[in-house]
């Protein structure tokens, strides 16, 4: 008995949760398993006949399962007091030792199946820009997960929000705010990604029926709508239906992902928990927050609300997550809430602004687009007569975002600017339809550049581009500021050396 116990411990100690074995099997595993089960039922549970008839499939499944089991067996991890040692990669060939001090964020997610088996997917991230995804991903048993979180948390308590004691600061948005957040930040593109993933994976398991039924559904719906709306071409109706449906999928996914959202400041860490179907928890090192981004759209600006994002390596990089700190808050409350959650990030005043006479610099590109689109449409109609209706509709649809962009850019001419205070650089810029107020610690700026077009050269204006030390290669551009103002700002912020080199 003792020997068996020893063997059991040697086999399961320091290993991932056994549910991970299923993750290591290929998708074709399910493709074979379903007909195999069907055969067993068809043979009325006559095992001998079933074995004779489907021995090849059984052998294939055994090989796939055996391979997955060996992979699971060779991958292990060890949580020590100051570090985690993980053997990952194929057959545990890669042995990484990550010190907790170097971890920027730890993310954990638990889906429905994982919850049933008390398992957690844990992603460990550092500031190393070597990998696109997480540095280490492990499927942990509940006990190991709690132990890891106990070590990472300053007060050695589990990350359950109910146990938040006094002295900890937490922010929990109202459900109505979460609804607004999901409504505003859902896009058809992410909906399409989710729908395509679902279709591809679903088709692999249950065949082409799913795709055919969806295609037929869209066709039927288009015919029904066509009866109601006479002047719009059917293709336009079908496209509109697809866009709306995918947006709805994205909305539902966003809502599920951010339901019961909560962010807690806990010592030098920030805990973010969310999720309805899949529960997620993130522990972020406050010291490693690279940038805070207060984001608004034009609509949000009119309603005086905003969303606060944070950039910390690892947070928001997996599973189409949004790196949000406060999903929705009012413009009045944002400073107070930030003091509560990230007190080290001040909100410096804007000291550099573009000149109002240079507003055409912002508005001109979308205006050119708005004027060029009808011209292109007219030319297209001359060439393709039979497509006239569709082209007219496409031009009309294309004009809406063009005009909206022109309005947004015009407003951005008044909101753009930069400032500096307490070692933090403030940048107010506009990327496409979103207004950003970025607060970046000077030590986290990895690259700074100043760019002039020939028209800007004549007026002594410039664009500044700031790149932060995050894995994503995003640059933040503030357009059309006066060169002298920019140089003064850089000198004040202690980056005169960089400014001198520009």
């Amino acid at each position, binding site marked *: 008995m003792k020997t068996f116990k020893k063997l059991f411990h040697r086999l399961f100690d320091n290993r991932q949760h056994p549910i991970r074995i299923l993750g290591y099997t290929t998708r074709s595993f399910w493709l074979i398993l379903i007909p195999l089960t069907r055969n067993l039922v068809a043979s009325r549970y006559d095992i001998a006949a079933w074995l004779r008839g489907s021995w090849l499939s059984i052998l294939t499944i055994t090989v796939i399962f055996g391979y997955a089991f060996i992979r699971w067996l060779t991958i292990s991890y060890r949580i020590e007091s100051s570090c985690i040692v993980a053997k990952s990669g194929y057959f545990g060939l890669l042995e990484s*030792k990550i010190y*907790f001090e*170097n971890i920027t964020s730890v993310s954990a997610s638990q889906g429905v199946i994982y919850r049933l088996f008390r398992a957690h997917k844990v992603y460990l991230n*550092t500031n*190393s*820009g070597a990998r696109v995804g997480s*540095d280490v991903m492990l499927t942990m048993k509940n006990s190991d997960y709690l132990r890891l979180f106990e*070590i990472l948390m300053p007060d050695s308590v589990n990350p359950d929000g109910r146990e938040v004691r006094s002295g900890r600061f937490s922010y929990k948005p109202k459900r109505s705010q979460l609804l607004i957040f999901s409504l505003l930040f859902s896009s058809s593109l992410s909906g399409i990604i989710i729908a395509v993933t679902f279709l591809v994976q679903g088709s692999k398991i249950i065949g082409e029926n799913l795709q055919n039924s969806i295609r037929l559904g869209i066709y039927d719906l288009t015919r029904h709508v066509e009866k109601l709306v006479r002047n719009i071409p059917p293709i336009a109706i079908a496209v509109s239906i697809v866009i709306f449906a995918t947006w709805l999928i994205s909305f539902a996914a966003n809502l599920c992902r951010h339901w019961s959202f909560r962010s807690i400041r806990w010592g030098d860490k920030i805990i973010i928990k969310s999720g309805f179907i899949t529960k997620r928890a993130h522990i972020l090192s406050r010291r490693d927050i690279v940038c805070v981004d207060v984001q608004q759209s034009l609509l949000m600006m009119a309603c005086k609300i905003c969303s606060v994002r944070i950039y910390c390596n690892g947070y928001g990089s997996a599973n189409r997550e949004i790196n949000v700190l406060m999903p929705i808050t009012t413009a009045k409350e944002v400073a107070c809430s930030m003091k509560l959650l990230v007190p080290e990030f001040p909100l410096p005043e804007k000291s550099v602004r573009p000149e109002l006479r240079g507003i055409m610099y912002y508005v001109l590109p979308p205006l050119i687009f708005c004027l060029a689109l009808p011209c292109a449409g007219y030319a297209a109609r001359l060439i393709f007569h039979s497509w006239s209706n569709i082209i007219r509709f496409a031009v009309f649809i294309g004009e809406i975002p063009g005009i909206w962009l022109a309005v947004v850019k015009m407003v951005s001419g008044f909101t753009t600017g930069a400032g500096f205070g307490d070692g933090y650089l403030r940048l107010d810029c506009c990327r496409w339809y979103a207004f950003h107020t970025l607060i970046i610690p000077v030590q986290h700026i990895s690259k700074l550049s100043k760019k002039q077009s020939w028209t800007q050269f004549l007026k002594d204006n410039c664009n500044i581009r700031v790149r932060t030390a995050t894995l994503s290669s995003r640059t933040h551009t503030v357009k059309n500021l006066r060169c002298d103002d920019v140089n003064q700002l850089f000198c004040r912020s202690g980056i005169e050396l960089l400014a001198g080199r520009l």
Partner: protein
Amino acid sequence: MYVLYYMIHADFSPKEAQSMPDNGTAKKFRPSSRGLTVIRIMLIIICAAAIILSRMYLSAYPIFMYTVIGIFCFSSFAAGMILLPIVFAKSYYVISPTELHKTAGLFFITQEYMKTSSIQYVTVITTPVSSLTGLNFIIVNALGGRMVFLFLSKKDALEMTALINRMIVSRGGGKEL
């Protein structure tokens, strides 16, 4: 003469590698000669397989067959006896308290430097029976990039990992939270 020199001198013993100049605190490592031997064996196997397959499937086109065999034999010989020994002989890695340094290359030597203060964590790749084959690799993950040390003997790989981990600990990375 240059090629002959490297053909003779490339296979240094691991003991020689250990006794490389050690300027006080910096330590120098070289790729293991066993790694080179393993690659040579693999090249011979690939070459033999190519010859067999060519004789099996290309015997109807003798000129084409001999050309393919010739290309495989020549490239395997060139790689195993000339190019790789030069690469192995020219490569070395230095670990100092302030930076990691890697020199490698064939005709154009590449030198890479990495500040030890930017190191985040280390990954060791040890293949089965790596103490015999010398197929041990180290990946040093740092801010914005990584440095890979190839074909180390197991002893060197473990020593390098221990050294780098000690550096992380010494700058406060290993303290308990």
